[in-house]
């Protein structure tokens, strides 16, 4: 009996075929149907571990998490070590080309040729000139504004609004002598590695940033 005949029989009688070979084929078909149904009904999930507290490294977790939420996925971000800086009430994150050699240093304004010019800043300038970090940060903020890329604060608000779970590492607070009052009240929970791994275990996508 082939599958078409079996389907016909099933429709007519509503029962499973009885001979072994047909039963095997029938089960395969049923299993495929069931798996497809479950896959369609399942909500995909994203779990990100954010360990860096600089402006450049703040973008990937917030962009991916907010986009996942927009797609209707379950998204959570576990902020640990320097990543915890990204959950401060008073968000003061910076970026520096020092020790960050791939970072382009380009002017966010001026004539077109200048905006495309990569200004090589030697490490002794980036490291020793007072205020250089603030300058580089201001340039990056201006660049994102000109290009229509949202600020970290804006992305963080979108994450909160769209139900991304912002999870903070309990150990880091103790380690760096932070006070919990310094952090945003929207943090969904303060947990450790064991609890987050349990959350992340079933995620479809798990990323370390």
């Amino acid at each position, binding site marked *: 009996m082939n599958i078409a005949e079996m389907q016909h029989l099933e429709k007519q009688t509503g029962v499973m075929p009885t001979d072994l070979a047909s039963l095997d084929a029938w089960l395969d078909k049923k299993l495929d149907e069931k798996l497809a149904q479950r896959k369609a009904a399942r909500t995909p999930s994203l779990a990100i571990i954010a360990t860096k507290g600089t402006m450049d490294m703040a973008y990937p977790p917030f*962009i991916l998490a*907010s*986009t996942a939420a*927009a*797609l*209707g996925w379950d998204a959570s971000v576990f902020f640990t070590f320097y990543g915890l800086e990204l959950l401060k009430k008073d968000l003061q994150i910076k970026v520096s080309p020092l020790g960050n050699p791939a970072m382009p240093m380009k002017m966010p304004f001026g004539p077109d040729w200048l905006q495309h010019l990569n200004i090589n800043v030697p490490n002794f300038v980036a490291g020793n000139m007072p205020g250089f970090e603030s300058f580089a940060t201001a340039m990056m903020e201006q660049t994102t504004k000109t*290009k*229509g*890329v*949202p600020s970290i604060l804006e992305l963080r608000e*979108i994450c909160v609004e*769209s139900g991304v779970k912002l999870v903070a590492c309990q150990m880091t607070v103790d380690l760096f002598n932070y006070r919990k009052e310094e952090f945003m009240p929207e943090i969904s929970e303060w947990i450790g590695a064991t609890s987050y791994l349990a959350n992340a275990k079933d995620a479809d996508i798990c990323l370390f940033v």
Partner: protein
Amino acid sequence: MEAKQTLDARGLNCPLPILRTKKSLVAMQSGETLKVLSTDPGSLKDISSFCSQTGNELLSSQQQGKDYEFFIRKA
């Protein structure tokens, strides 16, 4: 094509066009049409991917000069 609502996402870059589209759709009724305008070249693929994953129907997507224009029917 007629749209119930228009979202102007011109000048915005990834991921804002998608996030704003989602926000606009949430406030709309099922079956209503949203028109989205954008300038981000990435939105061409992103909007189509967003629609296929969320079940909303992308009725049309086209480029008009520097602008992209999308019509989405809410599922």
